[in-house]
C-alpha cells in the first residue's frame, strides 16, 4: 500500500517538474492553442472512466459511468480536434478557395 503510494507520489512530483520545464517561453501568438492543447491532455480522465465502467455494479455506478464517459470523451475528442483546427490555420499557406491573387501573397515570404 505505502509502497504504491510512494511510487505514485514520486510520479506526481516528477511529472510536475516535467510540466514546469516543458513550458518554455511561449510566444503570445501561441497562448490560445497551447492552452487548448494542454486542455486536451487532461482528457486522459477518459481512462479513469474506463476503470469506473469496469467496476460499476449499481445503478448509481452505471449513471456515473455514463456521465464520466460523456464528459471525458467530450474533453478529449473536442480538445484535440479544436486544437488541431487552430494550429492547422497557423501552418497552411492560403489554400483557400478565395479568388485572391496569391502571387502577391507569395512575394513577401520573409
Amino acid at each position, binding site marked *: 500500500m505505502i509502497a*504504491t503510494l510512494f511510487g505514485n507520489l514520486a510520479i506526481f512530483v516528477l511529472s510536475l517538474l516535467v510540466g514546469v520545464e516543458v*513550458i518554455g517561453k511561449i510566444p503570445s501568438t501561441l497562448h490560445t492553442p497551447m492552452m487548448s492543447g494542454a486542455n486536451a*491532455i487532461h482528457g486522459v480522465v477518459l481512462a479513469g472512466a474506463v476503470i469506473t465502467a469496469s467496476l460499476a455494479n449499481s445503478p448509481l455506478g452505471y449513471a456515473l459511468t455514463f456521465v464520466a464517459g460523456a464528459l471525458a470523451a467530450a474533453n478529449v475528442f473536442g480538445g484535440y*480536434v479544436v486544437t488541431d483546427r487552430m494550429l492547422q490555420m497557423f501552418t497552411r499557406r492560403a489554400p483557400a478557395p478565395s479568388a485572391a491573387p496569391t502571387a502577391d*501573397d507569395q512575394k513577401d515570404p520573409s
Partner: protein
Amino acid sequence: MTLFAFVIGVVFLAAATLFVVGLHLMRLPSTARRGNLISAGGMAIAVIATIVFSLVTANGSWIGWLALVLGAAAGAAFGIVRARTVKMTDIPQLVSIFNAVGGGAAAAVAFADFVLHSSGLRLDLTSSIPIVLDVVIGSVTFSGSLIAAGKLQGVISGSPITFPGARIVNVLAIVIALAAGVFAIVVGNNVLLLVVVLLASLLFGVLMVLPIGGADAPVIVSLLNAFTGLAVAMAGFAINNQALIIAGALVGAAGTILTLQMAKAMNRSVLAIVLGGFGTGDSSSSAPDDAQDLSNVRELTADDVAVQLAYAQHVMIVPGYGLAAAQAQHEIAELAKLLLAHGIDVKYAIHPVAGRMPGHMNVLLAEANVPYEQMLQLDEANVAFDNCDVALVVGANDVYNPDARKPGNPVSGMPILDVDHAKSVVILKRSMRPGYAGISNPLFTDPKTGMFFADAKKGIADITAAVKEYVPS
C-alpha cells in the same frame, strides 16, 4: 503488482513521454501541429492500455461497459461537432467548456470510486483523501468554467456580478465543502457527506467566477485548466492509474506556468484577478456615451479612408478587441488582399493582448487566411511603423495609447504599438468611448489622425467598396 500490470505501466510511461514530446513541440508555430498529433497518439495509447487492462483484470458487468460506450459516443460526438463548427471568435468559451467537462469527469470518476466502497469497510486514507480533493477541485472547475464560458459568450454579463454578502456566502461554501470533506475522509464510506462536498464545491465555483470581469475570463479559464489537471491527477491516485497521475500533474504544472505567462503578457496579476480587483469593468458598459468633445476630431468617411489607402505604399493594420467583437476578420483580410493585389505593402501589427484572449487575434486572422508572415508581433511592428504611410486601427484603443509611456494612469508601463510613429493614422471605431482601461487616447485628437466612426464589419466593407473605385481591377 502482476507482470501484466507492470507491462501496462510501462505503456503508460511511453504515453507520458509522447505527451511531453507533444507539449515540447507546441512551443513553436512550425512544429505545434505535429506536437498536438503526437500528444493525441499518447492519449490513444493510454486509453487503449487502460481498456485492455480493465478487460483482463476486472470482470465488470456489461451494463457498465454499455453505459461507458453510450456516454463516450455522446460526448465524443458533442466534442467533435462543436470543435469542427465553432466560430474562431468563440474559441475561448469552447476551451472553457471542454475544461468544465474534464473537471466534471474527474469528479465523477472519484465519486464512483467512493460509491463503490461505500457499502463496505471505510476507505483507506490513501484513497479517500485524493477522492475528496478530486471532488472539490473537479466540481469547482466544472461550475467555474461553465460560468466563465457564459461570460465569454455573453450569456452571463461580462461585468462583475456581486450581491450583498457574496463574500460571506463564498467563504461559507468553501468552509462547508472542506468540513464535509474532512468528515467524509474520517468516516470513509458515507456518500451523503460526499454529496455535500460536491454541492458546496459547485456553489463555490460559481461564486468564485461571477465577480470576475469578462475581460479577465481568459486568465481564469487558463487557471481552471491547470486545476482540472490536478483533479485528474487526484483521480489517478484514487484509482491507482499512473496515466492519470502523470498527465494530470503535467497539465497542472504546465497550465500554471502558462497562466502566469499569459497574465504577464496582459500586465495583470493572477491574484488580483482571482480576488476580483481593479479594472474588471468591460469597456462598453463602463463608459456611457457622455458628452465627448468632437471639436478637435477630424472625422473621415469611408471614401476618405479609401483614398488614403489607395495611394499609400506601406499600410499597417492594427486590429483590436472591436475587430474580434464585430467578427470582422474576413472583411479586413479581404481589404488587405485587395490592397496587396495593387502592389501596396500591407502588414498586421498584433499586440499580445489585442483580442479577447492572448494570442487570439492571431488565430482569428489565421482563420481568415492571413499568412503568418504578414502578422508582425510587437517588436517587429514597432520597427515597421517608422516607415508606414497609413496605420489603419480597427476597434482598438489601449494597445497603442501613447499615454502608456507616461506614468500615473491605468496603462502606464504597458508595452504599446507605436502607431503614432506612422505618417498618418486612421482609427475605425463606433464612437469616442474609451476602451477596456477606461481612459481616452490622445491620438484621437492628433492632427495626423482621422476618425472613421462605424461598426468594424460594416465600416471595413464600405472602405473596401470605396477602394475598388480607386483601383479598378
